């Protein structure tokens, strides 16, 4: 622990159990979330490697089709609920109290519980792979009737999703309570840093939609074991109703996975452009508009289910509208860079990479919004390319940018810049090698979620597989850099970055266990 603490009497030295298991400290819980997320990133990544190994050439080489489907299903569930969401929650834990000048999260015991549910939820989810009938193989979207064919794993999958939902809801309640109650005097809402704003809106999205997912999967459970017929036509239900309910959760979920990333990038670009963020208030309004629109576009995930024409038109138009606030955000970032005095340390590289490649994913998203064209794109690799562009060089790059940006603050050590830049360039090269060819095979007609494909798709699939192996290996370098930085390195200054602004940079690096016991003065 640091010797330059603000108030030493608070800086206890608890044992391992007290420090990590029963902790109520937002910084330690943030660390737990982030390390858990990194672990899940590798577990989900290993599954992606299985998928890409099988798709390296045509024919069935490595796994059975059923297990292949389990891999695609589990890869998605683990990456979404285990890697990206906990990473954002970990960042929220570490940063929100420091950014708003609060002493901790508002509900510290709830905070501990939110985290410690997760290891159990994911142990249970992963254990389903070893159950009779195998793991869930109906896709992470859990569409009935297919998902009802799952074997013994079924109730365990449902229960683990319930646990993840409970964890997310509690985490979100905590974020909202912290932001609304723990701000230092003078920190008005429209003075809050953008990461705090995007998380506030994300937390509301989570509170609104996680119970909807819980309801949907509970109905699946009763359909399978308690003779209800919510999603079975034979009993007066409708399988498509599940899709409507699922995507009413699922589309806001997409923004849950990207809004905090917008916040992160809105901190990093101004810092390294040495120029204030352009259009702060329009950024806030754009985030709020995206959040609102996210509730009225869900059926664009299901244009092919046979909706009435009016429904298709409505969802096409509302989906296209999202391009407007999203465009505003991208334009604002570029205007922030414009006539700045830029340097390109690793966090900036990842942030700029985020803007470029997220925008690419946005373009394919705009194409997917066009319902007649979506009939061709739907359920092909074009969709796979689209959402991986917004999630990997999108959300994941933003998380890595955040890790490099705030790691010196958290650990008190600078990371190795050469390794960091190497990590960025290799990741960028391989992520494009993996996902760019998927646009081509998708347009040429390759459906997603298939373990084997016809010969004309071979070259691009081989290319994507090589890219994915490279990307996977490169991430080991990331783990190495993080561990190296935690263990030691050049001492970081309090401000760390020349252009850094915000309350967290006024604290020592690393900050003592308890900060802002006395609220800072906000000008």
């Amino acid at each position, binding site marked *: 622990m640091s010797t330059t603490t603000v108030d030493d009497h608070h800086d206890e030295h608890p044992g391992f159990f007290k420090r990590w298991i029963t902790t109520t400290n937002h910084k330690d819980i943030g660390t737990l979330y982030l390390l858990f997320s990194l672990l899940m990133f590798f577990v989900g990544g290993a599954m992606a490697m299985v998928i890409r190994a099988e798709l390296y050439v*045509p*024919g069935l080489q490595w796994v059975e*089709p059923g297990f292949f489907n389990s891999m695609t299903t589990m890869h998605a569930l683990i990456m979404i609920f285990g890697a990206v969401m906990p990473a954002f929650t970990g960042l929220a834990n570490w940063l929100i109290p420091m950014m708003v000048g609060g002493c901790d999260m508002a509900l510290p015991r709830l905070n501990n519980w939110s985290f410690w549910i997760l290891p159990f939820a994911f142990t249970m989810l992963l254990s389903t792979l070893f159950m009779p009938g195998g793991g869930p193989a*109906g*896709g992470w979207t859990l569409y009935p*009737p297919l998902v009802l064919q799952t074997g013994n794993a079924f109730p365990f999958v449902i229960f683990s999703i319930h646990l993840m939902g409970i964890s997310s809801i509690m985490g979100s309640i905590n974020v909202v309570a912290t932001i609304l109650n723990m701000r230092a005097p003078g920190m008005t809402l429209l003075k809050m840093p953008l990461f705090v704003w995007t998380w506030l809106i994300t937390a509301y999205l989570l509170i609104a939609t996680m119970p909807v997912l819980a309801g949907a999967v509970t109905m699946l459970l009763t359909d399978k074991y308690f003779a209800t017929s919510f999603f079975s*036509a*034979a009993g007066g239900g*409708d399988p*498509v109703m599940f899709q409507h309910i699922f995507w009413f959760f699922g589309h806001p979920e997409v923004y849950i996975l990207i809004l905090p990333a917008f916040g992160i990038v809105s901190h990093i670009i101004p810092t390294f*452009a040495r120029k204030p*963020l*352009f*259009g702060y*208030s*329009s950024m806030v309004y754009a985030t709020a508009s995206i959040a609102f629109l996210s509730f009225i576009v869900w059926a664009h995930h299901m244009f*092919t289910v*046979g909706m009435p024409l009016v429904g*298709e038109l409505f969802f*096409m138009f509302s989906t*296209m509208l999202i*391009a*407007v606030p999203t465009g505003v955000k991208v334009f604002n970032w570029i*205007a922030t*860079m414009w*006539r*700045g*005095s*830029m*340097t390109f340390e690793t966090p900036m590289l990842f942030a700029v990479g985020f803007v*470029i490649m997220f*925008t690419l994913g946005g373009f394919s998203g705009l194409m997917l919004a*066009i*319902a*007649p*064209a979506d*009939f*061709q794109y*739907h*359920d092909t690799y074009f969709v796979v390319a689209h959402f991986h562009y917004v999630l990997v060089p999108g959300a994941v790059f933003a998380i890595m940018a955040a890790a490099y940006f705030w790691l010196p603050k958290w650990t008190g050590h600078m990371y190795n*810049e*050469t390794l960091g*830049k190497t990590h960025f*360039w290799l990741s*960028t*090269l391989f992520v494009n*090698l993996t996902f760019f*060819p998927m646009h*081509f095979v998708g*347009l040429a*007609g390759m*459906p997603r*979620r298939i373990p*084997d*494909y*016809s*010969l*004309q798709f071979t*070259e*691009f699939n081989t290319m994507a597989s090589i890219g994915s192996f490279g990307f996977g290996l490169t991430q080991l370098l990331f783990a190495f850099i993080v561990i190296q930085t935690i263990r030691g390195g050049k001492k970081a200054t309090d401000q760390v970055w020349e252009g850094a602004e915000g309350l967290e940079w006024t604290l020592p690096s690393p900050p003592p266990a308890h900060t802002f016991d006395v609220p800072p003065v906000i000008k």
Partner: protein
Amino acid sequence: MKKLIGRLVQLSVLVLAALLLTTQFAAAEYGLNMPKGVTQISNEVYGLHMLIFWICVAIAVVVYGAMFWSMMFHRKSRGFKAATFHHSTLVEIVWTVIPFIILIAMAIPAAKTLIAIESTGSSDMTIKITGYQWKWRYEYLDGDAAGVSFFSSLSTPLEQINGDADRNQNPNYLLEVDNALVLPTGKKIRFLLTSSDVIHAWWIPDFAVKKDAVPGFINEMWTVIDEPGVYRGQCAELCGKDHGFMPIVVIAKDEPEYTAWLNQQSDAAIQQAKVELD
């Protein structure tokens, strides 16, 4: 360190360039883009796809252009001093309104095509398609063909899928069936689509026809095929372990050939019906 970074940048640029070149070569041989297809709708859809694609390219040129210009010239290492501006209501309004106008321009043709796609009325014939785990069933519901029905399953030998048995010599690997759906050209064909177990989706890229087969419900779609030929597609909704192994093959024949095929089938169907009656 700078040298290493420079090397890395060079290396990645080279690899990306190589990648682009290979895709150029591949363009000749393999599909890179959506097929134009053989129906009026598929051509319209292709047109929409290219229109929105070029709109995206145009926006990309402007957005990425400004970004790269800025990254090239507004660098601290070039001694560029940061400006201090951080707000402009006018600019915000401009870049809200312009995308909005572009979207409206895009929405109009898209809506027109969508309305055309959903106009299933006044068809010449109706085919019922039923999805099964993991095959399709086709039933001809009306006209001379009424009563003709058959299953259609993958005909690629298992040895080719699981082993190495000359898979590469089979141009239709995983895209071939025992009984293809035979359809006439130039007729408006209505499809009624349902499923007997889980959700499937019937898709022929060349027709730009894709819709889910939902158990307990009937979906409608239609097509008019302009040219005779063999058209291949696959199930497009995850439906279990053999989802990747239930292809769709349509053989489109012009009127005389179709009638000839039909006569064969009808005779067979009548024989079959007699057997069942006895």
